[in-house]
């Protein structure tokens, strides 16, 4: 592991930018999980993943090379990071449709 996220990760957006290039777990509202390397994301939280694995009920169902995930479906999380805090309210920040932000096992 490259260690903890920098304490300079102040905003949710900074946090997300800081995990580009890392293995992430993306959980959709439907409960499907996608694991892959976060290639990039945008303001809608559209997400591009590389080497993506699709897990339904925790079971590997599919794998894709590159994947585009439409932003309204998702929520993101990442290895070793437990939360993304809003510096103003000091509360855990919810990203529109986020269910939660959890830690994924690093590979």
């Amino acid at each position, binding site marked *: 592991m490259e260690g903890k996220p920098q304490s300079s990760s102040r905003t949710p957006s900074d946090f997300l930018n800081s995990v580009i290039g890392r293995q992430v777990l993306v959980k*959709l509202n*439907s409960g*499907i999980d*996608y694991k892959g390397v976060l*290639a*990039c*994301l*945008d303001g809608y939280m*559209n*997400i*591009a993943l590389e080497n*993506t694995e699709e897990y339904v009920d925790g079971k590997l169902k599919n*794998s*894709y*090379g*590159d*994947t*585009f*995930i*439409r932003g*309204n*479906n998702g929520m993101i999380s990442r290895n070793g990071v437990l939360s993304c805090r809003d510096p103003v309210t000091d509360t855990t920040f919810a990203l529109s449709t986020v269910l939660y932000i959890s830690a994924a096992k690093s590979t």
Partner: protein
Amino acid sequence: MADINPTIPDTGAVEEPIDLVRLSLDERIYVKLRGDRELRGRLHAFDGHLNLVLGEVEETITIVDVNEDTNEEVIRIVKRNSDMLFVRGDGVILLSPPSRA
């Protein structure tokens, strides 16, 4: 049409997720939709909503029937083909370029 950031040349660089879609233009792609539907087809056009125009499309619909007597779940796969299909973007969950489409 694919008019998002038209100034960015098609260099193969993926700087934002939509670039991945742009790079798949005129390629066969796999699209996962809400409602247990999947599409495989050639991407003719898209926009920022992920509205898509697909050609030579095979749609796969997965239907789970529950047998009322035995409570068994029976999974049925229904396929249909369309020459040309417009897909409203809000139904799109995931889109993956050619590799496995």
